[in-house]
């Protein structure tokens, strides 16, 4: 992780279907979790589901967040399906 990047993590079904555990994106002024999700969905293929019917949960710095949550350099943002523990 670099000071000017944001770390993106995926879990469970998303991690498997995107075949990606983690990636780095550059931090930009005004970037939100929702905007990043839409941007990633434009990669097409399995990524399109990020903007689809299935719910995608988001956490920023290991706390539940919302699409409107702002992302800053050094942040860790995670996308994952609804949780199914217990």
């Amino acid at each position, binding site marked *: 992780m670099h000071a000017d990047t944001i770390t993106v993590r995926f*879990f*469970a079904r998303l991690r498997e279907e995107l075949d990606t555990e983690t990636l780095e994106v550059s931090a930009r002024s005004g970037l939100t979790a929702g905007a990043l999700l839409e941007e990633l969905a434009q990669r097409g293929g399995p990524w399109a589901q990020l903007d689809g019917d299935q719910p995608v949960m988001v*956490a920023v710095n290991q706390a539940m967040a919302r699409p409107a949550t702002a992302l800053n350099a050094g942040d860790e943002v*995670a996308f994952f399906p609804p949780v*199914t*523990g*217990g």
Partner: protein
Amino acid sequence: MISVQFEDFDVASEYTALRDSGAGTGAIATFTGLVRDSGDMEGVTGLYLEHYPGMTEQVIAGLIEDASKRWDVRAARVIHRVGRLALCDQIVFVGVCSAHRGDAFAACEFIMDALKTSAPFWKKELTDDGEHWVEQKSSDLDKTRTWE
């Protein structure tokens, strides 16, 4: 005490730790969740559990804190297993020690219900024909709403 672990846990040791840590109080409620021998589909042979290390522990600590604000909680212990689990294996333990039995029950059930819907764990069912991720049940979400 919060632990997310691959290893099995021992309910007897957890109970003893609760009893010792809440010395002088009168009520200990515990809940243990086990892998059922039938899942959402036929022929389930086991489970695989994944979690978000770091966030999981923070979320559970927050749940215990929330419970402690609402009820008398002298000690609480939460253990959640991850990795491969066989049928009938223990998955999760929640134990609460309180001065009052109503508080012990309420705090224990609250933590367990909230864990199901807000702690980042994901469950995959393993079958002879392959594996599939379990989808969240709306009944679990409804349970947490009754606590809000």
